[in-house]
């Protein structure tokens, strides 16, 4: 999908919606700090119930966009509605309908997990009668029921993040914003956090909007927008993005490579080569091709390996550099990131 095609689809608001309403509608949203344009006229929409990811290096404008959608920053120009409310004119309404999990911890160490949740429930006006049930539900969901009475200062980094996610869900928001939900966590904790996030879809009717600069995390999203230099360069499902980049590589291990190559050539018109002892060839969608291969050919095959293009390849294709290179070169732009703690910010 090209950028031009994508822009057209958004401005006319006729994307593949399956009759679902949009949870987030963004129309030419921009944010500038003096001469520095942090977000440069982005437009997109997120469907209700979707998991939508913003993928890009630090300083690309992810956090600035999310801050505008959460009413923490006023856009320089453009419009956006979140859960049906305008982010500039209906700030309180937006705030009461969204849940927020920041990349920096925002729980109170001296309070217990339960006290942190109660504080949140009061601030968000969760009806008294439902507070208890909601607390039990969200604590259970993130596996912290046993530790509810403990002060947060005794929690590990992963437990704190889980508590933040539980708190973000407490008031039954329609849209949950997760800003770099797993940054700074070890790989095992990261995968646990993702298990919770994905299990959310089963238990809550919620739209999830997240930002990440981890390629592997973007894979969990229904759709991804790759953002670079304040602009959305491409937006689609992870599969479509990867499919758009190139073909899958299939490697077959077989005792008779010559026969396999001949069969592939005759039956499918595929020119295979032998690479490191395996018969190697490229097809559009390898996982769908392999069953056909088994069904239609009578070959002795010992092993099959399908390697798909990664989102790294996608990022490379659309921005001309890897995300790690982009991180290094955008260190300056980082200063414009409003999610960086105020201690380093100058007025």
């Amino acid at each position: 999908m090209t950028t031009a095609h994508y822009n057209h689809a958004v401005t006319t608001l006729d994307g593949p919606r399956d009759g679902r309403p949009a949870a987030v509608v963004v129309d030419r949203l921009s944010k500038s700090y003096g001469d520095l344009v942090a977000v440069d006229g982005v437009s997109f929409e997120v469907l209700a119930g979707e998991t939508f990811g913003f993928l890009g290096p630090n300083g690309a404008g992810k956090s600035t966009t999310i801050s505008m959608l959460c009413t923490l920053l006023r856009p320089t120009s453009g419009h956006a509605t979140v859960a049906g409310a305008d982010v500039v004119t209906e700030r309180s309404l937006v705030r009461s309908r969204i849940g927020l999990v920041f990349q920096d911890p925002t729980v109170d160490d001296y309070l217990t997990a339960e006290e942190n949740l109660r504080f949140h429930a009061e601030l968000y006006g969760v009806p008294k009668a439902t507070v208890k049930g909601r607390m039990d539900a969200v604590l259970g969901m993130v596996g912290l029921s046993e530790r509810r009475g403990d002060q947060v200062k005794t929690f590990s980094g992963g437990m704190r993040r889980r508590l933040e996610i539980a708190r973000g869900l407490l008031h039954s928001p329609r849209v949950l914003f997760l800003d770099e939900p797993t940054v700074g966590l070890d790989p095992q904790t990261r995968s646990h956090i993702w298990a919770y996030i994905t299990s959310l879809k089963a238990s809550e009717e919620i739209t999830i909007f997240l930002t990440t600069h981890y390629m592997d995390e973007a894979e969990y999203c229904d759709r991804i927008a790759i953002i670079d230099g304040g602009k959305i360069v491409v937006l689609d499902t992870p599969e479509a993005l990867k499919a758009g980049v190139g073909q899958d590589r299939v490697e077959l291990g077989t005792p008779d490579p010559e026969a396999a190559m001949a069969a592939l050539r005759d039956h499918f018109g595929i020119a295979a080569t032998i690479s490191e002892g395996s018969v190697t060839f490229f097809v559009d969608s390898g996982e769908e091709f392999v069953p056909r291969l088994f069904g239609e050919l009578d070959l002795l095959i010992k092993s099959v390996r399908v390697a798909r293009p990664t989102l790294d390849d996608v990022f490379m294709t659309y921005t001309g550099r890897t995300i790690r290179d982009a991180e290094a070169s955008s260190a300056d732009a980082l200063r414009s990131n409003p999610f960086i703690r105020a201690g380093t910010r100058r007025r």
Partner: protein
Amino acid sequence: MTATGVAQPAAVRDAGGRFADDVRAVRVVWKRELIRFSRNRTRIVTALVQPVLYLFVLGTGLSAIVRSGGHFNFRTFMFPGVVGMTVLFTAMFSAISIVWDREFGFLREMLVAPVRRWALVIGKCLGGASVATIQAAIMLALAGAVGIPYAPVMIVSLLGEMILIALLLTAFGVLIASRMQRIESFQVVMQFVVLPMFFLSGAIFPLSRLPSWLGALTKFDPLTYAVDPMRRTVFEHLNVPPAIVRAFDPGVSWNGWHLPILFELGLVAVAALALLAGAVAQFSKTE
């Protein structure tokens, strides 16, 4: 790590915008300050060390020099000042904890909630003022040790004055904290604001017979108008000769006009409201 059960779809209600939402926010922010205070026993004890040292070490030391005649002890004079000092340090410390809240992120949890900023500021000020009053009340319990009777009327009047002073100082502290970006600035505030306020307030020496430059400076210190009513309240319940009262409880006068207690307390109240308004305005500016 499995999702235990399906959360029932809670009644989604759009909070925010209503006065009742803001009142609830005031209450919960206030309550958090009290919980944090009660949980930090070390802080409560530590905060007692300084006033106790001033009262019993500095006070006893100075008693040996200050020959007041009769049975009047300099520690009795210092007591209301030291109680005021406890309010000052605790209130400032509580208010400036906003900078800690910012540093450790919790401030953001409050700022993104669907409530108005004034509610958060008022909650913080009421919380800090409550904590400072409780801390100073612990100090007040030592009155008997310096020869001050536990007269109920005096205790109640002092508590009322302490609450008012605590509000003034927390509002002042929150105003400073809202402009403070880093924890390191806390020392600067202590040295350039809190300590001068303390020394110029008449908390540890009588404001009578001061050189004119120092006497003039003390009149610009808002704490002067807070410590004086407390001292006068204490002296009303002491049985000391008029000469002692003149020397140690001279009151505050403007151009020869002796300010009444209620006028002083009125000044404190007006200043507290002005600072509170300033803190709310300053706080509402931050994104």
